[in-house]
């Protein structure tokens, strides 16, 4: 598996690359499209060797640049990292869009890392499975609820403090009225302070829960009938 992107911009870049491939093949019912569609199906089934054959055949029929990127992905899945790098570089040489270049360079980086690991491994040993991406914090409904509740309590507390402040600042009336008002103001301010503290605790708890609630990153290969590629999808 290859991680082609770990953040939303990367997903977007991947999507653009795929969309470019899709647009390039849209509206054509020719042998090239047929082979690309077959290659994608084989890729989905995990038969990467035959998927490569189909894509190579398609490329020979018509050397579309995006097929070079797809071939790089397939070679990567096959553990042929040097070949994958070569495809990616050839893809870059076709002067694709900047975001696609960035995607290809990321893929080259990943392939090179894998290649280095492969070369460092003792001969005859099966290369280890690629490391799983680090677990990522997951934001869920409970976090949203906690933060919203904490924020609401803090807003209430702030309102009480402001109300108390306003009441304490009102010097009108007689001294006894001022005393009464000040007692109410003190109550409101201390209550508000308590609410602020409680709200901060709840809100902080929500944020802490989010930071500590780690889940595995999920990598999904993407393959559409008229496109090929991979993307890493993070749960949010």
């Amino acid at each position: 598996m290859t991680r082609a992107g770990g953040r939303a911009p990367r997903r977007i870049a991947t999507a653009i690359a795929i969309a470019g491939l899709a647009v390039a093949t849209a509206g054509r019912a020719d042998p090239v499209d047929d082979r690309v569609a077959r290659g994608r199906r084989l890729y989905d089934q995990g038969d990467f060797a035959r998927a490569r054959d189909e894509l190579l055949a398609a490329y020979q029929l018509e050397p579309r640049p995006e097929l070079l990127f797809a071939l790089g992905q397939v070679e990567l899945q096959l553990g042929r990292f040097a070949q994958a790098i070569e495809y990616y570089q050839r893809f870059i040489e076709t002067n694709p869009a900047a975001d696609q270049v960035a995607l290809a360079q990321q893929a080259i980086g990943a392939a090179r890392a894998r290649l280095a690991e492969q070369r460092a491994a003792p001969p005859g040993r099966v290369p280890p499975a690629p490391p799983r991406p680090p677990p990522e914090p997951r934001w869920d409904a409970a976090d949203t609820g906690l933060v919203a509740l904490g924020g609401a309590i803090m807003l209430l507390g702030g309102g009480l403090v402001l109300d108390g402040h306003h009441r304490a600042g009102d010097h009108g009336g007689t001294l006894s009225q001022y005393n009464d008002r000040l007692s109410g103001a003190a109550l409101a301010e201390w209550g508000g302070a308590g609410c602020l503290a409680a709200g901060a605790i709840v809100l902080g708890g929500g944020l802490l829960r989010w930071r500590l609630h780690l889940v595995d990153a999920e990598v999904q290969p993407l393959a559409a009938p008229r496109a090929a590629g991979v993307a890493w999808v993070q749960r949010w």
Partner: protein
Amino acid sequence: MRARALAGCAAAWLAVGLGACLDPDYHCTTSRDCDVGEAGRCEVDQRCTAYDPACASHRRYSDHSGPASSTCFDDAVAPVNPCAAGQPPARREGCAAAVCKALPSCCDTGWSEACVQQAQLSCSDVVCDTRIAVTASDSKGNPELWSLTWDGARWMTAPDPRKGVLAWLAPAPGDGQPRLAFAGASSPGAAELALAGGSLSVPAGTYLEAASVDFDRDGRPTAVLGYSDPSGNPRLAIVKLDDGSARSTGAFAARLTWGDLDHDAFPDGMASSLSPGSGNYRLLSNAEAADRTRTIGAVVETSMGSGLTTGSPAVRGFGWVDVNRDHLLDAIAYGSEVNLHVGQRLGLPDTPQIRIDCDPPAVSSTCNGGGGTASTQAAQSFAGAAVLEATGVALVIATFPAGASMEPPSLHRAEIASSPLAVTQLSAYAFPSCGAAPCPPILAVIARDLDGDHQLDIIAIDSELQVYTALGGQLQLTRAIKLPTALPAIFEVRTSVTGAPR
């Protein structure tokens, strides 16, 4: 990062909000606002106080009075003008510290004329001009008003055409200039207290005296006016000059002067009876009413003894001075006798310890026992002033003979020994030549430092409104200025003295 920002924001809110709780500050506009505690009062600093007898001023700041909360109210001030009497007590700072070392009442009760005289003696930086409001009247009571000023180089006079009483009031709080005031009729059936820049309506009546005194110990500019109401009853009006409010109480109020009878931190007064020739005067104790306001409480009547001077006002004035240097104010009444009440720790005694009578003046028992005639023993009226000296006190006493057959008018200086109290030396002032006739009698005597040498000098005004001066201990009177009076025969001269630093 976001959590940290939220925590910071919450902390800021807490600080702001709780800060308001920790520093409550209430400002009143009227005493009706101060409805917490007994007899709430809105002070001049717009803080509320309530009655608390544990405080010298009987007032304690209410809660929520900022930094003053729960402290005793104290209206003491650093006087901007130490040359003017009638101000609140002074803080023990600078010149006032030296004055109050000699006369604690200047920092405990009020800044009286005795304090001004002590300041002129004790403080090298206090050099004052002298301003005298003169209210002269003939035997029928027709008044003539003059303003007389010594600026250190020359005398200046200004007549006032109004009919009433002219007096110098203390400077407004924070100001250095005394205020010349007129109290009298503004229209038939109405009266006013007129100051530069405006006038206040006061109860209708015939006004006799006006003076500043911190009667309520509230630090507000307060004038006390002595008057007789339209029914002829003697009354005393206490007027707040800042808001024009006034209240009145029944009290003898002519020749009203303010000092300290009982050391209770509230100024007390002395006044003569309104009845001409009664020979009585009264000690007016500033007391607390049931509603905790201040009023004239115990009134002790004291007699001038047997002295009756036919046809002359029996009591010509009062003075306050520490005669025996025991740091307590003593009171002197000038009339058909000169009565000296020596202040005690428990208060001023009702009866005088020393009575001075006769011509030349002497301790009454001595001259009576000396075989003096009726005319020399009793048929005299005295005006005078106490003169504070570096080492003692002298009384300057003017005689006012009732009849032409009696001794001619004179002015004497009597040195007073403090222990035991006695007249140790009597000297006569020399008048300038008055031609063939005797000089007119002196009706008013004032002691102030005119030349800035920190010795009290003598200012004397005779019955033709000729003003004399005698500097320091000199016994030669010098004509200073004559007020061009239109009254044919002046019978009484009332003076109100103040000054400002020069």
